């Protein structure tokens, strides 16, 4: 039994932030259970990511390496990690809850006759794992009573990456046995959505501008904020009617319906025609100088102020936090 293994995911040649958060969760779990904390890296750039992991407060770092793992496939990762965990027999396996993990971790758990406790937002004594149910309207606490490995994945932002301690650890290499024929899917190169069509419907972050912007000349202010956020620009109807932004960027009852993780409404009052287009957003932020503006009714966070001051300040703050 080798304690807790945190599986770190590679992003652009480095360990991704969500993985550091998973390691922080692992740290939390280690202090609750008294088990050893270890990290495993898998996939491309394994040498570099292993080095990063080795500089953290973990006992061991395993570098799971194989040519067939350089490109992510569910088959490759499942086979490799299965062999690794058969060898290590962990008590806990912690993943970041990324799209990639969702694609293979449940299959791996099933292969080992276990079930993944996914999208955990908190770990408490027991250990018990807290998850959100019913779209966040309910919180549930889970226990893993069995003797096999307990697999869990942690929600992005539930733990803080900067709480991971520093240290030195030994790196060992694990080479799984994988045949090319076992990889049944052929992934293509990642690509961005087509440049011409504006697909607000699938945008994760949107900065939306309304009549408060007063003039088309003021748009660059908001566009800069969108850029630093990595967000798409959208607008309420009057802006598009005036031709300041193309019609495809209109959000509302006669435009697009969007449901991004973050919707920033700048200078938008919140008329019903606009609200119905964006009310499904996970997190709504409103910036408006009118404290009575209906948009504040639906916003999670609001700043009552002059957008010409708030927006540049926000742009700076976002840049600083990167």
């Amino acid at each position: 039994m080798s304690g807790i293994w945190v599986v770190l995911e590679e992003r652009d040649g480095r360990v991704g932030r969500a993985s550091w958060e998973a390691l922080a969760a692992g740290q939390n779990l280690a202090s609750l259970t008294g088990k050893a904390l270890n990290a495993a890296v898998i996939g491309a750039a394994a040498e570099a990511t292993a080095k990063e992991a080795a500089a953290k407060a973990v006992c061991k770092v395993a570098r799971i390496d194989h040519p067939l793992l350089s490109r992510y496939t569910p088959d490759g990762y499942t086979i490799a990690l299965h062999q690794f965990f058969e060898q290590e027999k962990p008590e806990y396996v912690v993943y970041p809850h990324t799209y990639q993990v969702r694609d293979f971790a449940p299959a791996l758990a099933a292969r080992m006759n276990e079930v993944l406790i996914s999208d955990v937002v908190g770990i408490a004594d027991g250990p018990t794992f807290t998850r959100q149910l019913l779209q966040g309207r309910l919180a549930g606490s889970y226990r893993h009573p069995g003797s096999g490995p307990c697999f869990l994945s942690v929600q992005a932002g539930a733990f803080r990456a900067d709480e991971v301690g520093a240290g030195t650890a030994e790196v060992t290499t694990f080479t799984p046995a994988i045949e090319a024929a076992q990889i049944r899917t052929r992934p293509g190169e990642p690509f961005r959505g087509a440049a011409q069509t504006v697909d607000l419907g699938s945008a994760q972050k949107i900065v939306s501008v309304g009549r408060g912007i007063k003039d088309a000349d003021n748009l660059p202010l908001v566009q800069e904020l969108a850029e630093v956020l990595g967000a798409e620009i959208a607008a309420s109807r009057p802006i598009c009617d005036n031709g300041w932004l193309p019609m495809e960027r209109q959000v509302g009852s006669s435009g697009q319906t969007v449901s991004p993780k973050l919707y920033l409404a700048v200078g938008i009052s919140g008329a019903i025609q606009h609200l119905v287009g964006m009310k499904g957003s996970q997190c709504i932020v409103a910036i408006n100088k009118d404290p009575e503006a209906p948009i504040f009714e639906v916003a999670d966070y609001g700043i009552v102020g002059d957008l010409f001051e708030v927006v540049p300040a926000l742009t700076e703050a976002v840049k600083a936090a990167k």
Partner: protein
Amino acid sequence: MIPVHATLAEPQYFSVLEKLLFLILVVASGALFWRRFGPILHRILASRKDPDFHLDHLGRRLWDFFAEVICQAKVIRQRPLPGLAHACVFWGFCAFALVTLNHAAVGFGVGFLDPAGFFGRFYFYLAAAFAIACAAGIFGLFARRFFVRPRWLGAKVSYESGIIAGLIFLLMITYLAAFFTTDGTTAARVLWWVHTLALLVFVPIIPHTKHLHLVLSPATVFLSRGEFSKIPPLVGDEDFGLVTGKDLTQLVSLQAYSCVECGRCSEHCPATNTGKELNPREIVLGVRAYLNGPGPASEEPLLGKYNSQTAVFQCTTCGACEFQCPVGIEHLPIMVGLRRGAVNTGTWEDDYGAKLFNQLERGSNALGISALERDKFIQKQGLPVFDGTQEYCLWLGCMGAYDPKGREIVTAFARVMDYLGTSYGVLKKEKCTGDPVRRLGNDLVFQTLAEENLKNLAQNKVKKIVSICPHCVRTIQEDWKAYGTPPEIEHHTEFMARHADRLPKQASNEKVAYHDPCYLGRYRDVYDEPRALVQISGRLVEAPRHKERSFCCGAGGGLAFLGEETGERVSHMRAAELVATGAQTVGTACPFCNSMFRDALGEMNGTAPQLLDVAQLIARGLPEPIAAVATTAPGGSTRE
């Protein structure tokens, strides 16, 4: 000079040959008439029977017949000058009945009206007076159609109308000319034959042209469905609305054949007026063309070659067309029927429509907003919850519960009710009444909503409802009847008007242009109550098109939930008309009208007038409430 004892000159003698010729011509004329009319009658009768038509309310039918057909009330009131001209032609025809009969009898040598006798002379002079009026009338109408060319009659000039006009004119002139000839002369004989030929040519032309209305429209008016916008129920498992010819009913066919192509429906249609494809007259004529083509037994889709699906879905169901029609065509059941045919079978593919239907299937309101938002609003405003003990249930509706401006209207009205000491409560849960899906023709979703709502109301023991939205009022009172017995419901202006004497009069000279909502005005006949309330709070000014002539705001028929309009926006057109009255405030009585005008007024350059619901107009004259925070005793009893 009219001779002192001048009477209608008649040929004194017809040869056997002439009588034979006359007989042959009469038979031929009749046969040609029937050749065309017979199949039309057959097509009407071969159409499916109307499931909900009963020949009841005979008194009202007779009255409508008398007023609309005999007195030509609608014809004259809605287009006075041409209407009067037409009335003269029509009355002329009626007066001529005896004359024409006598004329034919004379041809067979058995004339019964003696020109020398008292009755005969009296009658002939009476008929002459009508003939003058008729000739003048038909001449005026001819001049209007061919020289003035009003655009509602269509771009193409109707030559058949010219021919008919010419024949009618000829009939009148030959009749009048007979007063200036003497019995037995060649002139008299010639006149007789010209008159006769004109008549015998006229008769077969009738069923080939829109003049078929001469025969059909009295029946059409008498056989109306009985109520404004009466949407028939679906019958059986195979009925999805008006999909193919097989679904056309007798009333629809009768009405389609009665169309006189006058264009009064188009003249008042918001879609036609803003350059959309939809033209109500063309819809009716499209049905007629279908009947003449594939026919009532055909399985060819009604929407396709003969009528456009796009056009049908541009209708706001404002009802101006049905309201105007002088021959009794009921456009709304046809429109909704065609929409049902497309939606219930899934042939209508529209992203916004699908989204609306899916939202109402999964959620409680047409806007797709979480019901928690409604709860939050109720809590924040401290609205009492209905628990069966209060007198009224205040129905919020989708706009009242979720739209920021709709909520303001609800809050204002709640203040008025508090001031009046009315006991009321708001339901814990409401689902959309289903108005938009009802007008769009989705019977599946509508049935579910109606049944669930009725169950909810019954469980909560609701007896009386008051609502700020005319669409909710109409749907609950009328459309839900197919699925149960809805409680009594009235509009908030009707409620407030009853208590008008207790509402403080505001000393204000502010001009308020009141806009009659379609669903309150034409649909419910409520015009005076809101006006009485407006007079309490300011000075009423009327837009040029007001009361039953009110021009739609563009939101009805489910269109508020569909995508962008093409062409000019209906709401903008109406808003401009309201602003042009010079009023400082536009008064509305419907949250949808309010929402549409808010958009339109917001885009106007310069200072736009204020926009307030009647409830807000009244509420602003109320004294501030004594308690700053309203307290509700457990059980939601009357608040002070």
